[in-house]
């Protein structure tokens, strides 16, 4: 079952590279949260029950519902519905995404870590590269935020892959969640404009 969830997670990453509407990004972030919750349920069998319940509650509440809710609010208040037209065309982004997947396979193969499941390693690296690609190729700060969320999901998958041996890594993943949460709340509460280009028009 966990394999199906991992494959679906990888497919969401491909969809990230090809989607152009921010609402789709938000839905995908929510779906990734649900998938990570399912993966955590199946994978973290050696962690004690209280810790597992906490991790699942955190992924379900925070990643699957709270984040998409806050992001929808930011998109609604900013009125920006589509990825900026000055962002890299989707075709090239998808091409880079495919290259990122190949690079992830090569890197995961080169690392040869016996303690980490290779499939987790590949998907985590692919997720990491996809997040970075979104941040580098898009111009809107909200895309950067979503890119950061994907990066954070990559760290979470790394932590799940090694969770049984290194429970501290899971805590690092959750700390990142909290950090991103504060960041998003900052945008939500302060109503910052998502388009940083407008700052260039400021005059003193």
């Amino acid at each position: 079952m966990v394999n199906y969830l991992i494959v679906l997670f990888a497919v969401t990453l491909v969809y990230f590279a090809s989607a152009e509407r921010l609402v789709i990004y938000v839905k995908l972030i929510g779906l990734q949260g649900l998938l990570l919750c399912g993966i955590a349920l199946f994978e973290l069998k050696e962690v004690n029950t209280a810790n597992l319940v906490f991790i699942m509650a955190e992924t379900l509440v925070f990643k699957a519902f709270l984040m998409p809710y806050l992001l929808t609010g930011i998109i609604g208040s900013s009125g920006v519905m589509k990825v900026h037209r000055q962002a890299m065309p989707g075709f090239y982004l998808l091409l880079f995404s495919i290259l990122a997947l190949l690079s992830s396979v090569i890197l995961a193969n080169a690392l040869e870590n016996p303690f980490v499941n290779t499939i987790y390693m590949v998907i985590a690296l692919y997720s990491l590269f996809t997040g970075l690609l979104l941040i580098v190729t898009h111009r809107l700060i909200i895309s950067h935020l979503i890119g950061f969320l994907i990066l954070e999901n990559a760290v979470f998958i790394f932590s799940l892959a090694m969770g049984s041996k290194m429970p501290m890594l899971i805590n690092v993943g959750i700390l990142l969640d909290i950090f991103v949460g504060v960041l998003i709340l900052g945008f939500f509460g302060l109503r910052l404009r998502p388009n940083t280009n407008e700052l260039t028009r400021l005059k003193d």
Partner: protein
Amino acid sequence: MTGFVLILIAASFFPGVIVRTKNIASGRRGPGILQPVREIGILLKKGSVFSNTSGIIFQIAPVITLSCIICALLVIPFGNQNALISFDGDFIFFSYLLALGKFFAIIAALDTGSSFEGMGANREVFFSMLVEPAFFILLATFAMFTGYTSFSDIFSNFFITGSHYVFIYSIIGFFLFIQTAMIENSRLPVDDPKTHLELTMIHEVMILDNSGFDKAMIHIGSYLKFAVYGALIYNVIVPAGWNIFLQAALFLAVQVTFAVIIGLIESFRARNKMNKNPKFILSLSAIALISFVIVLIITDKLI
């Protein structure tokens, strides 16, 4: 031989089921399921008209295209029965036979000297080029998964590998074969066969100059191609070892379902903008690549 006959039967009602589904979805009565076959009968009785600017290529291309497709369907197996032609690497033979047929259709379109047909040929070859990696990566995945490199061996061993990943490959194969069939046959969301404006056409604009007998050849080729992809879909979702009569019934059921899916897609989905098509097709390659990476991992080819 059973598979070959079943594909021919499926091809005869396939376009009719698509049209019937579209009619029901839009609340119209519509013609019978065999109406496209009757239309082909009418076209076959007519002669062909050739423009003065076109040459021999234009005259022979429809027949070559159809023969390539008929040869390609000889390598498609049915259930446990081997295909009429089966050898190692026959999926490459299959793919390049279809490509050869398409190549002749494209140079025939260029041969007419019409700028519209050249434009259509340009688009069609570009989309075919983009969908080719997805098809090959998917079949390479199947080959690696089962350990065989011919269609007959791949599909007869597909469900007896004992791996629990088989359902993932079934789903991915089902999805990618449907999308590849839609692109190869120039259907929605990449192309709309009912479009009336030459500037937005892809496949239809390429065959504007064909008439009568030649046009019948092109239509038969298109229907056969659908049935061939339907047979591939059948092979990845139905285990090969079942009773032959049950398999034949399921084969026809899968073909009808495939045609209904196409009819529903064409009824409820809009066509992509032309500049969005490359991205859409490339995303299929990305999905195929994910499945390939997984098969590399489960067969211990990595590390």
